[in-house]
């Protein structure tokens, strides 16, 4: 396994963990009828989910092969 793949997998795990925690908090905020539930959703849950999505998108950058690495054909 290449070092970059380990990095990608680690990023995917971090992304998944952030999304899971954010979504669990979103469920709590949806089942809790209270003004603070909106704060929990908007500032904690949505932020964690958004961060998870950003980390996933960052992992896609690692997947992209740099143009210099591809062998040239004659």
């Amino acid at each position, binding site marked *: 396994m290449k070092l970059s793949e380990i990095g990608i997998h680690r990023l*995917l795990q971090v992304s998944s963990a952030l999304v899971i925690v954010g979504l669990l908090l979103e469920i709590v905020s949806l089942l809790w009828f*209270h003004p603070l539930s909106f704060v929990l959703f908007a500032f904690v849950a*949505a932020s964690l989910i958004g961060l998870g999505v950003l980390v996933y998108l960052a992992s896609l950058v690692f997947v992209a092969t740099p143009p210099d690495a591809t062998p040239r054909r004659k």
Partner: protein
Amino acid sequence: MIWILICQIVLCIALACVFLIYPSVTTGTAWKILAFIGLCALPALCIVGGMNIHMQRSEQRQFCISCHAMAPYGQSLYVDDPTHIPAQHFQNHRVPPDTACYACHADYTIYGPLNDKIRGLTRIYMQYVSTPPNPIVIPGGYKNDQCLHCHLGARDFEENPVHSAMMDALTTNRMSCLTSGCHDTAHNVANLSHEKFWSPTSEAQ
């Protein structure tokens, strides 16, 4: 609606769990697509759905009066006196009873533009960290637009000679519906202890 969103969230959590435990599965094309759905598309939809439900919920009267500072305002809707404008509107269903607060305060805090949304957050801060103002005052005063978005164009409003004589002043907010001496009894929470209250026979009220 809320249960559909929760099912979607559970599905998204299940997908994310797969990539948390087995991140190496994303080497295949199908799994890459599934990762995009589970870690990008579905979470984004969950945020949109959650925001939609929270905005709808915040329009509920029960949501507004769940703050301790707002409880007397909710109680004032049951005052047994037709000169109390909010009580008269609420008890006669001139506004939807479940969303009575939002019907007349549609430009208030979270429902208004960005400045109002920020002000709404300071209200939450005051409720839970510092002390809410007493009495609660709407910055800039109550705007006539909140009355006119229902009453303007209504026959009994426009055929009333008092209203028609000052229509320009009302529509341009130069004269307030509430503070001009015409409809000056709003929630009046300071005198609630002296009021009689109406008890609805149906819980649906």
